[in-house]
């Protein structure tokens, strides 16, 4: 009997040991999030306090479990239920009369629970919901998707609070993306500066000198006015000063960028004019309307292909070129051809054409402004840092205008068409004698000039509203650019456009937008007195009228 007892005990001990080992294993595995199922059980409690604690521990222990966020989400939406019988958690999918379609939270099995009395809702109150919300945001820090992590990190940075520190530290351990890390470290520094030990604070305040965000500035200001220790205060003030100076530096860069962007718009608008006016000596007052036609081409294209907004701009560029060029050629053949050598008459005739074109657009579309949609890839901004960001549409237009400029330069300098154009403009009779069809070349040149105006219209449609008066707004400016730069010189046009754009943007904050424009016009009028033929006048016999 004793023997048997012993054996029995042995077995018992064995089972106990295995049990302990098993339990241990279980416990360990629970550390690695397999015991999620048990940890959520207490959510069935009625006490909100318990629920809050449960959620806190859940987030701490199971932040890598993907089920957790769906649990929290459904809880937030009051869609989390548990069955009365075995306390399985389900989420509500659809309520269909008395039928409740639900899904098992853990296994994703579909369940159809007919009777309302079979299950119970996990209730929440306002306080709990706000906790859930912040926890959810933090959870995203551990998402698989880098973009979600970045978003969440930015969110934490925006509403920074003491509780996030631990989480940030945890996230930093595993974070691989530099971008996300950077944002997290920014938050961490601020938190250190605010709540860290004195040592930490000193370090953080020093580090914050490199930061540019309003949060950092705010923190530093708080520290500089509230801190007890003199050293900390001084450091904070130094950092503030540093931030302010680098901020004004970035503001300066931003201003330069704005000037560049305005300049490139002017360049786009003026470059076609530089060809028709500079090369052909034709004053085309309808040039602005060529721009307008390009913009309306973009608009029409988007109306015809509403599903291809993303590509419409790309398609519109050659299309607008063709449409405007065609209109230009028609105008040249019908009217301007008869007026070569009579610049003042050309000016009047083309002005009449511009009136007619405007009225045509008013009749076909409407006198109202139309909105051209911006494709996804052109909206938003390129963020260099917290103080400096470039909007994509302006950035692309700057790049685009330079491409157009180089393109047109190449056409004029490297192609046989360009050679012929230059030959005709330099000496018409001689060119004719050499067998160049001058009439054809005239039409082509005018077409190219108009076509580029059309392209400018595509670019402008991304910046302003498209209306019948679009061209009018740019015609005087474009003429100023050409006159300022010097007729017949594309490089002059480039420099004139950029410098006028910069000048405008630097006067604007001092004098206001309208006065800036007036001052620039006055400046050009005075400039012309000094150099009547612009920055880069044509030299030699050709320059004499």
């Amino acid at each position: 009997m004793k023997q048997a007892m012993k054996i029995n005990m042995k077995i018992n001990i064995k089972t106990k040991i295995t049990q302990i080992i098993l339990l241990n294993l279980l416990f360990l595995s629970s550390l690695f999030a397999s015991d999620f199922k048990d940890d959520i059980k207490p959510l069935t409690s009625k006490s909100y306090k318990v629920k809050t604690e449960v959620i806190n521990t859940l987030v701490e222990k199971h932040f890598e479990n993907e089920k957790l966020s769906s649990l929290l989400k459904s809880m937030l939406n009051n869609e989390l239920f548990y069955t009365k019988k075995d306390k399985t958690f389900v989420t509500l999918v659809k309520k269909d009369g008395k039928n409740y379609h639900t899904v098992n939270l853990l296994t994703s099995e579909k369940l159809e629970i007919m009777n309302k009395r079979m299950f119970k809702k996990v209730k929440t109150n306002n306080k709990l919901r706000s906790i859930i919300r912040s926890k959810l945001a933090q959870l995203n820090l551990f998402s698989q998707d880098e973009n979600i992590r970045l978003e969440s990190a930015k969110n934490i940075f925006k509403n920074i609070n003491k509780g996030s520190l631990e989480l940030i530290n945890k996230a930093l351990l595993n974070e691989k993306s530099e971008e996300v890390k950077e944002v997290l470290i920014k938050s961490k520094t601020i938190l250190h500066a605010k709540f860290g030990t004195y040592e930490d604070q000193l370090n953080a305040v020093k580090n914050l000198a490199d930061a540019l965000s309003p949060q950092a500035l705010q923190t530093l200001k708080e520290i500089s006015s509230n801190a007890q220790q003199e050293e900390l205060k001084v450091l904070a003030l130094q950092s503030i000063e540093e931030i302010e100076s680098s901020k004004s530096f970035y503001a300066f860069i931003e201003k330069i960028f704005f000037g560049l962007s305005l300049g490139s718009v002017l360049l786009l608008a003026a470059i076609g004019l530089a060809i028709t006016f500079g090369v052909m000596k034709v004053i085309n007052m309808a040039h602005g309307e060529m721009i307008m036609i390009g913009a309306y081409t973009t608009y029409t294209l988007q109306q015809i292909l509403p599903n291809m907004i993303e590509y419409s701009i790309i398609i519109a560029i050659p299309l607008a070129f063709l449409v405007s060029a065609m209109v230009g050629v028609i105008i040249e053949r019908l009217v301007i051809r008869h007026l070569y050598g009579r610049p003042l008459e050309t000016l009047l005739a083309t002005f009449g054409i511009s009136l007619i074109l405007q009225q045509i657009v008013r009749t076909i579309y409407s006198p109202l402004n139309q909105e051209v949609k911006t494709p996804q890839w052109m909206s938003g901004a390129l963020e260099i840092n917290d103080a400096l960001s470039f909007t994509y549409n302006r950035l692309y237009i700057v790049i685009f205008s330079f491409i157009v400029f180089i393109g047109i330069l190449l056409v004029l300098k490297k192609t046989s068409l360009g050679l012929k154009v230059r030959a005709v403009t330099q000496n018409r009779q001689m060119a004719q004698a050499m067998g160049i069809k001058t009439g054809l070349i005239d039409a082509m040149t005018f077409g190219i000039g108009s076509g580029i105006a059309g392209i400018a219209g595509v670019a402008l449609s991304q910046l302003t509203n498209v209306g019948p008066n679009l061209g009018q707004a740019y015609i005087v400016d474009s003429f100023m650019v050409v006159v300022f730069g010097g007729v017949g010189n594309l490089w002059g046009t480039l420099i004139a456009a950029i410098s006028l754009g910069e000048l405008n943007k630097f006067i604007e904050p001092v004098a206001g937008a309208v006065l800036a424009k007036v001052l620039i016009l006055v400046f050009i009028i005075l400039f012309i007195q000094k150099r009547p033929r612009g920055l880069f006048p044509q030299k030699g016999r050709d320059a004499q009228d």
Partner: protein
Amino acid sequence: MEKRKPIITRILENDKGGKIVLSVLFIIVLYVCLANLFIPQESAFYISTYTVTLLGKYLAFALLALALDLVWGYLGILSLGHGAFFSLGAYCMGMYLMRQIGDRGVYGNAELPDFMVFMNIKELPWFWYGFDSFFITAFLIALVPALLAFVFGYLAFRSRVTGVYLSIITQALTYALMLAFFRNDMGFGGNNGLTDFKDILGFNLQNDTTRVSLLMISFFALFMGYIICKFIINSKLGRVCIAIRDAESRVRFIGYKVEQYKLFIFIVSAILAGIAGALYVPQVGIINPGVFSPLFSIELVIWVAIGGRGTLYGAIIGAFIVNYASTYFTSALPEVWLYALGGLFVVSTLYLPKGVVGIIAKLSSLKKQNQINNNTQKAANVTA
């Protein structure tokens, strides 16, 4: 010794077209004045006050066209900024009329015009001083445009900005002024301009007699403007001007100071334009920065082009034709007007290089040719 003829007859001696245009205008104006005042309203011959004002406006515009023709037709300067001189004269007059309102404005402030009270301007800006007096105003109406023309012309002509460049710069000038006058804090009423005028020299602007008098004054101004222009053109100075128009470099090489001639004519033209503006305001009853717009200035070029550049009376005819068409179309077929105006620009430059006057001249010369042909034929028949 032959008796000296009065100066006006001398000036108009060889100017058949001018004589015809001015006499026709005189008859029309006289009839309109008398018909408006003395014929009862029920009569078919009665002329409404609206027509009186309209005719007055046309006359002001004709004076403006005349001013432009002086520089464009005889000096070869295509100014696309004459609207600026017109507007400056108009604003001077407008400011005087604003001051005449006194405390009868909506806010009843005797010191400040309504719009200043509205815009929270506490004190009368310095450039409004002096506009209480009509004589100072009349002086300024000529002085302000003249000053602008002097400064601008001095700079432009000295550095020999010519042709298309000059046109574009004049356009930029009026554009800049338009932008400036649209600003509310300039103290000129911003985009609403100046309006709600009550009376001029104590006469109520709404009275028929005041309006008729303004019409007659406008005609007189146009007549005098014409005489002055003609006088300049017929003088030695005018000959030099025409020479400058046709061959500027040669005139300079001969030894004339081209800049001074240009400057003088430009200033005279600006003063005439300013006076035209001053006559325009009391009759139309409003002045706003819209008249500074490049469109208006370039439209007025087309008046001259349609009428016939370089004839003076052609400018008057053109101003009447285009403005009458404008009045007609904008009320009857507003959609069509811009097409028509645009078409006018194209057609007149392509097919009417000498304007309406050119056509008339051509027709009459054709007639003469026919007569001569007929006569010779008759003579031939007789001899046969």
